[in-house]
């Protein structure tokens, strides 16, 4: 009994991955949630290949898959992003692309170095996300680079001070490898709802 239990942490990960394909997508997320503290990435199962078809039914199926995938990636990502921002600020820039840009209340921060400096200088935060919406971005805009638009809203307290309501938008792009997909922020726009009065 004890042996079984002690192997739990090792064993169940394998067991999850051994499950049938129908669970693979869920397996992807459970693997992700356990791994997240070590990998600092948002990883989902491989993307479905876009099927070129003229039938409306088929294309709507594809679209639904895109929407599903976008929703899953967005949810997972948002959880990781805000948790990292609150508790492990140093690791936050790992979620950004090298050339990512952040517009923070109108201030432009561009490139990983600047982002690092910016997040270091930003006081400790306490985020609470109340609203999340996402859309898959049309491939015409992204030239077939899978992108998701994520919109969030909620409250934030910096250094325990006054609570601000904020709106934040991300453009997440997928970087696919044969085994999994890594999502990173291409661009980020953050604004307090009461920016005018601060």
């Amino acid at each position: 009994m004890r042996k079984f239990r002690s192997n739990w942490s090792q064993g169940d990960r394998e067991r999850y991955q051994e499950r049938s394909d129908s669970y693979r997508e869920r397996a992807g997320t459970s693997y992700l949630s356990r791994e997240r503290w070590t990998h600092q990435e948002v990883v989902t199962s491989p993307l479905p290949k876009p099927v070129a078809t003229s039938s409306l039914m088929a294309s709507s199926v594809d679209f639904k898959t895109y929407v599903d995938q976008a929703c899953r990636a967005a949810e997972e990502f948002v959880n990781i992003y805000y948790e990292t921002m609150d508790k492990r600020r140093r690791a936050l820039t790992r979620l950004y692309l090298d050339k990512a840009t952040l517009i923070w209340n109108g201030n432009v921060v561009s490139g990983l170095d600047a982002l690092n400096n910016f997040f270091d200088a930003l006081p400790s935060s306490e985020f609470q996300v109340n609203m999340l919406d996402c859309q898959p971005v049309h491939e015409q805009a992204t030239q077939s680079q899978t992108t998701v638009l994520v919109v969030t809203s909620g409250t934030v307290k910096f250094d325990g001070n006054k609570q601000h309501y904020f709106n934040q938008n991300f453009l997440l792009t997928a970087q696919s490898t044969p085994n999994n997909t890594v999502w990173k922020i291409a661009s980020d726009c953050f604004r307090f709802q009461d920016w005018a009065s601060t």
Partner: protein
Amino acid sequence: MRARARACVRACMLSRMRLCAFARFMHLCLPSALILDSQELSLVESEVKEEKALGQNVGLRSFPSLFCETLGPGQSNNKMCSTLRKCGTYRTEGRHDHGRTKGGSPFQDNFDKRNPRYEHGGHEFLPSERQENDGSVEMGDVHKDRQLRHTPYNIERSRKLVKWHSEDQIYTTTWRNRKLPERKMMEDTRDGKTRAWFKVTIPYGGKYDKAWLMNSIQSHCSVPFTPLDFHYFQNRAHFFVQGAGTASALKDVNYTICDDQNRKICIFVNQSTAPYSVKNKLKPSQMQLLKLTMDKRYDVSKQALDLQSLRFDPDLTGHDIDIILNRRNCMAATLKVIESNFPELLSLNLCNNKLYQLDGLSDITEKAPKVKILNLSRNELKSVWELGKVKGLKLEELWLEGNPLCSTFSDESAYVSAIQNCFPKLLRLDGRELAPAMNVDTDSSELMKPCKESCNGSETLKHTVLQFLQQYYSIYDSGDRRGLLGAYHEEACFSMTIPFNPEDSAPKSLSQYFEDSRNIKTLKDPYLREELLKHTKRDIVDFLSTLPKTQHDLSSILVDMWYQTKWMLCFSVNGVFKEVEGQSQGSVLAFTRTFIVTPGSSSSLCIVNDELFVRDASPQETQSTFSIPVSTPSSSSELSLSQERQEMVQAFSAQSGMKLEWSQKCLQDNEWNYTRAGQIFTVLQTKGKIPAEAFKQIP
């Protein structure tokens, strides 16, 4: 430290049968115990005295009553006896918890948990057996001595001298083979049942602000952890964590954090027994009694909790509970009760509780952050540094008289200023009103970058976008939104959300948007998720036509252009609009709309993604917009105002009491002639020609 320990042990091994030699060594070690919690300091001091009195018989010290008699001269053992007797309760169930003794924390060795044959810590009073094995008696006590110390090398030493005890018989064995620490760690993980504890030490930790230090460590550490029993000793900071994985992750943090002088911070992680507050966690029955006692001492009208001399409260002593607030476990339990029962506590009186340190109290900043009045008089606080541990509280009144620290200052003003350094907002100290200190209100928003106006790209881009928005909203507000078909791509996407407040339901003003709000945080049904995302342009425009008629205020919009490539442009529009029909007619709502557009035909923009977020407008937003009776965007005209003119407007507004826009209009009409504008204003006002809305609301 390790080398020394090993040397000691090796020395012991050589003369391993010479237990007295070992005991002598112990004796030598005692006075030089380095790393010691101050809470134990007083105990150690008394022990050392007793020990010296007892001479070689180190062992007998810990065994009460029976041995007191055999000693002959009762001596200081009586003191030990009485207190030991007082503590009384032994818990044999559960996880080998001990009754509290004056001897401090009976450390629970991890060995105990894994091997039930190990002694529970030397508190069983089975005199007959002990008398038989003289050797074991001494060894038994050596074990206990080790327990009293928090010194790492003593812990290591203990591993060499493991005692095996059963319930009835006590016998000791001296290990010949050294058990390596690594092996012990592996045993922990294999067991899985109970996780090892580790003590993390940060030398010079006292220099750093506790919150900054812990945050830095948390962010550098790859594994999240909860620090327990954070305390300082001399200049070192210590805390405990559980789990070998966490410990190794923390070890990796060593030398990675830089302080502001660019020095790397060292972090040492050592195995340890469970921290004091965990080992001596109060039983639920005790917690219950404590809660009842505290309830009695709570004054609801003033939200004040009086914990003066809590230890001698008749309720507690009657039930044989010793709440020594200086001890971590008692303080933690007290704070826990406060957190659950009196979170809005305003005043806390800890007078006369023999507090030597405030490490335990530092958690109060999280548990009862609203405390404004704190009474720490007649305790044993030796320096203002202790107060720094509760710096997080925004105290208005503080009592410190009767503490040793008060006499360390050369004069009154030095004392007051030192305290004010710690608590800048303090109003009263020891009952005396203080001159308010310079309000160094470092609003952290200064540290953050100031909020700027729209972030725009190049001028042409800005122009294109503004033009696009004007076209879009003119159709949107026109009443027939079908014209928007031309603006969208064939396969564009649109979704809409309203803010989700976990406490209240959607406000009435947003009721019409509520059903179609697609908040995937709360909406888990994949079918609905897809339904609410409008896909083709026809669907989108059909949906938009169902939304109430609006009037957007384009003069006050703010555009953030945040992503741009050759093929797309992504920007967010923040602004307000008014609903001009329907149930909530006249209500002003704020929106944030994110557009992703691609260059369309004939230099127009084609929307591929559109996300709308609608919320109630704040009072400032409602006021500042829609109040300017101008048709053209006034923002441009405002921007063109020179510094001098802006100042004139401000001054005029302050003098006349009119809002800024109206003041500006007045000045503009009078060709920026201040005096003339003032005269005209007075004339108009006496005639009653100026509408009431021009004036600022008097708060």
